[in-house]
Each structure stands twice: as C-alpha cells, then as structure tokens.
C-alpha cells in the first residue's frame, strides 16, 4: 500500500494557482524528498496532506485514509513538523511533550524524546524563550511521539545549526530503518540528496520530475559535454565519434568538437578521435551537476 497518494490535486487562492494538478505516490517505507524553490507550492501540498488547507479539487489519501473525510485518523498515524508554527507560551518543552503524548494516547517518555532531538538541557525552560532551532527540535520531538507510520517534515532544517542538521538526518535514517515513511520538503538539493530514496521536483505548482536520486544523476550525466580542441579538421572525425555508444550529439565549431555524451563514454570518444588520426591539442569536460539539473528544472519559477 502506498503511504501517500495525491490524485490531480489543485489549489487556487483567488486567481493564484498554487497547485496545478499534482499526481504523486509515496511508497510505504521510503524517504521521499520534495524539492522546489520558494513559492513552488511545497508547503501548500503539505498543508493539504494534514488538512490544514482544503484542496480545490483532487483527492489525497494518507495511509489509506481520505484526509478530507478522516483528518484525525491521518493525524493519529502521522508525525508532522510543520512550518510557521509557534509553541505554547505557557508551557515548558517537557510539558509540550507530555501534552502531545496524552493527545496521541502514547506511552513515550518526554525526557527520552527530548534527549533524542538534543533538547534535554532545555526541557524545563519555557518554550516561549526557545530559539528558532530549539523550537524546530521541539516540534520534531512532538512529531516522533507514538512512533508514527509516516513523518512529514516541512523544511526540517530551518533554523538548525550544522549539528542540528546532522542530528535531523540521523533521526530520519533511524526512522526509515524502523520502517517509517518519511516525506520531507526542502529547497536545498544537498539535504535531499543526502537522505532521500526518491525525489519530486515542484515548480510553480507543477511536478516537473519524480525520480530516484540515481535516476536524476543519470539524467545529469547524460547531459555531460566533452569539448575537444583538434589540430586538424573536426569534420574528418565527427562521423566516427557520432557512431559511438553513449554519444548523443556532435557539434563542429571551427577546430573544436563538442560532444554530448554520457560520463563513461568520454574516454571512448577521445580514443576514437586519436584512432581516426586527429591530434588532440586540449580537451575539457562540462559536467552537469545535480545542482545544475535542479536549477534547469526550476528555472523561470518565481
């Protein structure tokens, strides 16, 4: 069974189309990264998953429950680290956990959860005095209450220092190993790359790509370029290069050959050029990194 399933979900705020028909399935037990620039609709999607926001059309199922019809059933089995929340100003960190444990009818130990997110030292201080990063840790601890089947984290690294980011990553891995599905959004590719099994890229309310990290990397590699300066006429070797495996394009520019190919084909291209009798004066490669791929996917978005 899929943990999260969105079917043709749209959301309009007045004239603004925040989501333009999202179809997406998150399988049970996977870590799913939700990437996109600011304002692409990531938080809107997450708000819809938790039924904070009503979708304009489409259906949203979490763990087999329609979120519009059974929001509480969803919230019982989902731990959420939302965006733009505030702690209760009259309560300490420990009291927050005690409340969440009671609400979830769980038997967790507040101290143990606070320890896990690195907030044990501040457990008995008023949460109103917490920094952004501490508030973030507090909400993560609350999300972990009752060992949820699904964790939804909206920009989890917001306000966290490098230690906090690493701890967050460790917690995500531990939870995944326990069998938890983790769905998290980020506008920073490196964070998604580090932990996600699969990634969706959102751009201006549209899904532009859903793939594994490896799949994305292959797409990026396929876009590699090899630029070879020759002493002779490039036209003489171009046909031989073009016939090689893994070569997609061959362009001749003055005495330079620009070859679009996969990463592992580069050496074969150089060998072929020499075998054809041309002399290589210099060569360089233009790598398309994942970062560039992400940028190219999301270019033009606001």
């Amino acid at each position, binding site marked *: 069974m899929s943990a999260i399933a969105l079917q043709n979900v749209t959301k309009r705020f007045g004239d603004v189309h925040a989501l333009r028909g999202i179809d997406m399935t998150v399988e049970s037990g996977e870590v799913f990264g939700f990437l996109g620039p600011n304002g692409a609709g990531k938080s809107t999607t997450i*708000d819809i998953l*938790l*039924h*904070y*926001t*009503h979708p304009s059309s489409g259906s949203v199922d979490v763990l087999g429950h329609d979120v519009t019809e059974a*929001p*509480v059933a969803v*919230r*019982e089995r989902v*731990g*959420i680290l*939302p965006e*733009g*929340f*505030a*702690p*209760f*100003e*009259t*309560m300490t960190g420990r009291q927050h956990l005690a*409340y*969440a444990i*009671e*609400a*979830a*009818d769980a038997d967790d130990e507040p101290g143990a959860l606070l320890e896990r997110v690195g907030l044990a030292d501040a457990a008995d201080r008023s949460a109103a005095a917490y920094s952004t990063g501490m508030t973030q840790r507090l*909400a993560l601890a*609350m*999300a972990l209450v009752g060992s949820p089947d699904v964790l939804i984290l909206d920009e989890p690294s917001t306000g966290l220092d490098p230690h906090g980011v690493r701890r967050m990553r460790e917690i995500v891995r531990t939870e995944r190993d326990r069998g938890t599905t983790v769905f998290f959004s980020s506008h920073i590719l490196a964070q998604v790359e580090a932990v996600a099994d699969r990634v969706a890229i959102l751009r201006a309310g549209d899904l532009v790509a859903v793939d594994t990290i490896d799949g994305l990397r292959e797409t990026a590699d396929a876009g590699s370029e090899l630029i070879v300066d020759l002493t002779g006429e490039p036209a003489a070797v171009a046909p031989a290069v073009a016939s090689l495996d893994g070569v997609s394009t061959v362009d001749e520019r003055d005495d330079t050959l620009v070859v679009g190919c996969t990463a592992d084909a580069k050496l074969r291209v150089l060998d072929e050029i020499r075998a054809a009798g041309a002399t290589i004066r210099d060569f360089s490669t233009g790598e398309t990194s994942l970062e560039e791929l992400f940028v190219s996917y999301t270019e033009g978005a606001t």
Partner: protein
Amino acid sequence: MNWQLIARKELGDAIRNRQLYALAATFALIFAVLAELHVRQVDRGYAGSSNLIDYFALPSVLLVPVAGLLLASSAIVRRRSNGQLTLLLGLPHDRRDIVLGTYVGRYAILVVSLLAGVFAGLAVVFVTGHTIPTTAVLGYLLASAGLGLAYLAIAIGISATVRTQTWATFAVFGALLLLLFVWRFVPDGLAYAAAGFEEPVTQPWWTSYVGALSPSLAYERLLVPVLESDADRSMVWFSAAVLLGWAVLAPLIGYRRFVATDL
C-alpha cells in the same frame, strides 16, 4: 474526542499565566465591596437581607458580559494567526475539538471567577453576622452563569470566524454595544414601524419577547423572579431559552465557518 484535553489545557494556561487569579481577584474585590455596602444599608435599616442581589446585579450586568467576551474573543483567532493551531492540529485533534475545548475551558475560567466573586461577597455578609438569602443567591448564580455562557459563546463564534485579532476586537465591541445598549430601543422601534410609523396605541405583545432576544435583556428578565416574588413565567422560560440558544448557536456558526476555511 480530544476536546477535554484542550479544555484542560485552556484552564491550565490561565493558571500558568495567572489570568485566572487576576480575574478571580477582580471579581472577589468588586463583590466584596458591594456586599459591604449592602451590609451597611441593612445595619441602618434601609434594606433587607434579600436586597443583596440588587447589589450583586450591579456588576454582573456589565462585568460578566465583558469578562466573557474578553476571555474568548481572541482565544481561537490568536492561536490561528500565531501558529499554535498549526502545532495543535498536527496532533490527533479535530477542529471541533479546538472550538469545543476552547469554549469549555474558557467558560470554566469565567465560572470560577464568578464563584470567587460571589463567595467573597457572601463571606463579607456572613462574617459581619448577617443573613444570606440562599435561594436568591442560587437563582442569581444560575442566571449570571447563563449570561456569561451566552456572551462567551458569542465571542467563541466570532473568534472561530474571523481571521485577524483586529476584526475579532471590532466584532466583539460591536456585539456588546448592540446587545447591551442598542437592543433596548429595537422592540419599540419595531412596534413603531409595525404601527405604520406612528406611535402604537398599545404595546404589541411581542415587544418584550423581541427585547429578550438580547442576552443582557434576557438576563434582566431572569432576575425578576429572583428579586421579586411574582413574574411572568413564560417570559422567564423564554429568557432562559434565549441564553441557551446563544450558547449553542453562536459557537456552531463559528465552527461551521472554521472547518470550511484554510488554516
């Protein structure tokens, strides 16, 4: 069904931030002072023991509605705009739990404060060796608790409906002006209009019922049998029904609006 948890948290919040103590102390002080005034009148022979309710009714006409409105007007909308609702609704809570729990929790604060006031007043009467008109006090407490419930319900309804605290403040202030003052002229105005914009010869039977649609006016009619012995019974029942009607309908309307909108 997690509304009890929210209600308990609301009450706990009021204890932790000392709002409950401040409100209860205010009530206690005012009622004690009025009880003292009553006791002096009794000592001089100007009043009987049952006149205590006349004194108690003075603050409750304004203090109870204002306390009810202030306690609840920002209860939901403030948590909505500052993000606490986002955190709460991430837990297994329904939006109904939020409205109902806030309503019950805040009402508990109001009732405790009202009781603190009345008991402080009664303590003054008792300590100075005077008689406590027990039945009248009970009737007064019941009516005042009903008045507080109606106004608190109105504020909960407003708080669940509007999106900013500014609007909540305006709406609550408008509701108080309308229901406490303006409504006193509405029945006569309607009777005037019904008589073809002329002074009606006799008051139509329904004017007092229209008047009692305001919780404040209904409360004044509920106090009639407490203060005097004879009262129009149907009017009393109607007034009690009005208070209950506000208590149910206002939060229900607010809730329906609240579930239909985005957080």
